């Protein structure tokens, strides 16, 4: 998704700060990049392609200034070209704007501006903004008035930052797109900062400027910010708003790869640690209790989970937990829910979103809220839009995730949903059996990581026609997630199915060129039935990989086995998932794919 960075008060380091910020936003995925710096003389450099290309351009044709903005673009309106890259300028070149989101009324604005004599050079919706500002400046407005009036005409979602020639100031506004302000520089070791002194940063996401400061201010929808010697935040009516300065605990350096070839592999290997953080001080095995603060006081009579992508698979798992506890629960794709919501009644609506900024999920949550529902956000991101808009928030505490393919945050989501179910819906007997299994998770996952043979299996089947994944109950969402992971990063065709559904159609796709990954845990009815499904595909000569704890006889019918330790079936879902993460990773690696930045995908999707 597009990324915004801006800074003021960095003196001679303005350009470096911007380019560095863009590199820190690379993980969001992008196809073009650019910067604008100003103060005295406004200069813009932008290009399609990688940030390295922008850097080369800046080396051969430098710009300098005391205030600046930068942007990584992920194409929505118009292809990735130099012209469509941000920042965008007005006719005079005196205004530069970066934007994230979608301006829904851009066509009519553009028509009006064209009629008024403005010339457009790009296909983007964004370009209307600098021209609107130019219009207002021409009418004699001050730069701040011009910015406010221009933004006031926009409909849709936006995070916008702008600089204007001859003005040593930075302007920003947001509506339905993330924008966060960084304040000051972290004094070494002390952490005390005078927030009335700069420098100031603005970005789509904290990692962009985290190496400079941990002090942040979250801008709300409809708010404007002006940065010069100080910072002034105002609401839509222009009334000044007092903003709280919060401190982020994440370490900027946590965004290094620590010797791994890819962030994804680093993050897969970080899962034991991520789960320790998720469970810390929340479970008490000897006392059979769970403490998730006030979220634990909820007692939902029914639940509707809304989420997208990997988080949707976590939602399916969460719904299953509550169903098993006798509480009606259902998972919905957020994009569908937002436009075709079901009757809500007294249900609690739970949005699962790693970033807390997923536009589809936010939209679904807003729809639920509009209909009077109580809402809960399950997220990794403190201070995100989802946490601020929902009535309650449950954090998964996985730490920053850079790889576009979600791995450790899925594990964190499943663990947090277990805590949520145990605290609000389940009896002490269930707590006594599940809590030890949760506490075993870090060690059990480490065991999978230490002993996995996924790399060899992936190498053998990297050229397969298709990959199928089957599972039942808690393993069904894992089957879907295993297929999604493989699709995302290997670009190969993969599908996950409820194991019993295979014979109702998909079996027609199964051949000796399509390995089937069967998820089988325990030795009960579910395992026996899944083993039956394994026999069905085996009869069609498909290679079978059993991902199993070895309690059933699945291994007898499998060509390969990926082992997991024995544990509670709920915890086993996280373990089989680790094996499938490794399969996806190694298949993609064998095929030479850009694993951390798969084509066409972005880390957090902040457009609907």
């Amino acid at each position, binding site marked *: 998704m597009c990324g915004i960075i801006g800074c003021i008060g960095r003196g001679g380091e303005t350009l470096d700060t911007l380019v560095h910020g863009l590199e820190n936003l690379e993980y969001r995925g992008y196809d073009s990049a650019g910067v604008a710096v100003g103060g005295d003389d406004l200069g813009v450099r932008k290009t399609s392609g990688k940030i390295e290309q922008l850097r080369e351009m800046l080396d051969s044709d430098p710009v300098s200034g005391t205030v600046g903005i930068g942007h990584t673009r992920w194409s929505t309106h118009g292809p990735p070209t130099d012209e469509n890259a941000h920042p965008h300028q007005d006719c005079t070149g005196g205004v530069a704007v970066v934007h994230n989101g979608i301006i829904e009324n851009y066509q009519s604005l553009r028509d009006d501006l064209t009629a008024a004599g403005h010339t457009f050079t790009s296909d983007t919706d964004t370009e209307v903004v600098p021209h609107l500002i130019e219009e207002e400046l021409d009418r004699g407005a001050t730069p701040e008035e011009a910015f406010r009036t221009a933004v006031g005409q926009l409909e849709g979602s936006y995070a916008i930052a702008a600089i204007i020639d001859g003005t040593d100031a930075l302007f920003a506004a947001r509506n339905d797109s993330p924008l966060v302000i960084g304040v000051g520089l972290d004094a070494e070791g002390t952490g005390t900062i005078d927030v009335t002194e700069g420098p100031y940063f603005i970005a789509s996401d904290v990692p962009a400027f985290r190496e400079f400061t941990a002090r942040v201010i979250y801008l709300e929808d409809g708010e404007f910010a002006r940065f010069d010697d100080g910072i002034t935040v105002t609401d839509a009516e222009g009334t000044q708003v007092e903003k709280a300065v919060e401190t982020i605990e994440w370490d900027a350096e946590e965004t290094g790869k620590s*010797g791994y070839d890819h962030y994804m592999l680093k993050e897969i290997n970080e899962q034991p640690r991520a789960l320790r953080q998720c469970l810390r001080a929340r479970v008490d095995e000897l006392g059979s209790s769970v403490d998730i603060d006030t979220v634990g006081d909820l007692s939902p009579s029914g639940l509707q989970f809304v989420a997208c992508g990997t988080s949707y698979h976590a939602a399916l798992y969460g719904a299953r937990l509550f169903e098993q506890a006798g509480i009606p629960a259902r998972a919905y794709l957020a994009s569908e829910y937002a436009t075709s919501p079901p009757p809500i009644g007294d249900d609690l609506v739970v949005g699962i979103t790693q970033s807390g900024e997923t536009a589809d999920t936010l939209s679904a949550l807003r729809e639920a809220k509009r209909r009077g529902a109580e809402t809960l956000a399950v997220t990794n991101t403190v201070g995100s839009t989802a946490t601020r808009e929902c009535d309650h928030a449950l954090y998964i505490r996985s730490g920053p995730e850079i790889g576009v393919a979600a791995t450790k945050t899925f594990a964190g989501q499943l663990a947090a949903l277990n805590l949520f179910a145990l605290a609000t819906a389940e009896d002490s007997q269930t707590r006594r059996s599940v809590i030890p299994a949760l*506490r075993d998770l870090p060690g059990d996952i480490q065991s999978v990581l230490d002993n996995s043979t996924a790399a060899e299996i992936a190498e053998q089947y990297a050229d397969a026609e298709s990959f199928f994944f089957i599972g039942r109950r808690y393993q069904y969402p894992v089957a879907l997630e295993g297929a999604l992971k493989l699709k995302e990063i290997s670009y190969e065709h993969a599908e996950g199915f409820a194991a019993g559904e295979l014979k109702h159609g998909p079996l027609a796709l199964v051949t000796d060129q399509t390995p089937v990954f069967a998820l089988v845990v325990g030795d009960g009815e579910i395992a026996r039935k899944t083993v039956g499904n394994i026999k069905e595909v085996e009869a069609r000569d498909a290679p079978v990989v059993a991902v199993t704890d070895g309690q059933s006889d699945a291994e007898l019918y499998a060509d390969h086995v990926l082992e997991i330790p024995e544990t509670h079936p709920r915890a086993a879902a996280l373990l089989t998932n680790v094996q499938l993460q490794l399969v996806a990773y190694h298949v993609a690696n064998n095929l030479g794919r850009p694993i951390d930045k798969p084509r066409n995908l972005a880390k957090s999707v902040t457009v609907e």
Partner: protein
Amino acid sequence: MEPRTAVVLAAGEGTRLRPLTQNRPKPMLPAANRPILEHVLDALVEAGIERIVLVVGYRRERVQSYVGPTYRDVPVEYAVQGKQLGSGHALSQAADVVSEPLLVVNGDRLIESSAVEAVATAFSESGRPAAMAVIERDQASRYGVVSLDGDEVTELVEKPDSEGHGLINAGVYAFEETIFEEIEATSRQSGELALTDTISRLIDRQAVTGVPIDGLWVDATYPWDLLSVAQEVFERGQTSEPESAPGVWVDNEVGVHEDATLQPPVVVGPDCEIAAGAVVGPNVALSRNVTVGPNATVERAVVDEDSRIGHGSTVIDAVIGQDTDLGVGTTIPGGPSDVRVGNQIHEEQQLGAVLADRVEVAGGVSFEPGTLVGTKATLGTGAHVRGHVPIGAEVVR
């Protein structure tokens, strides 16, 4: 100029510590409640090192995931040694990322920051292109024995036949960046490239300063050495956990029942739970997420992360690996005993048992002193175990 970069050699398995090193290299074995490597990194950071390069190899994911991209705000980079072909070969893996004077330490040996500082200072003052720490030790024949003339090293002999006390190579070095060329120019001995061979060449050119150090310098050669290493950590209070009473270090995020007893010295890491009636200590280190059941007794033991000690168990003189479960009423009554490793017999070791990672011990199992149990072994209900249980073995009775 004093070196600001340190290269830490952490690629070796430490085969004499098997079966504990089945899943991780020796630097990741516990010195009390934290990996040995963490103590080494502490010493470097406290000595003012500004950049750390970790040479990793055997089971490197375990090091990388634990340490991450920074340690106490000092940036950490990784160099990979694909095959473990000696310490000189290991160091040469860092050649691409280091082009300045450097310190070199072993990641598997506890040292103090004063030793690092002493070597760095002596190196910059001496004007010689190399400096190495030397320390007086018993059992000198386990190590490299060093001869000094004033501050100049005149001889380095690896594992000599001579018995007893002597001045040994403490494994803390400072070099000019030209060390990488020196390693390149050193001939291999049976395929391996030992850093000490390169140092011997430098010694011949009178180019090595000897830096006597004292204080903490602990090496674990055999699994049971981890018990004495823990004791050293206790004596110096280097547990990195808050001290709630003299000699009692307990993390803030633990559950200790009010009817449990902690006897100093003892350290309890994060996420641990200790049940009513349990007596833990003296000389016990519980790493992260360890569970001690009701009425269990644990004494002189190192229990690594995610392991569980069942109801009413007795665990004395024991090293317990990661994710190992001791069932109800497990009895490890403690040493002394003769322990066999390969063809060698180590006499009169104070050792109850060494259990490696992921061992499953059912209820009522008892261990004869000196028992070694391999990774993922399963010990059935009521079994009486002695000697050496291999990796993955199943003991029924």
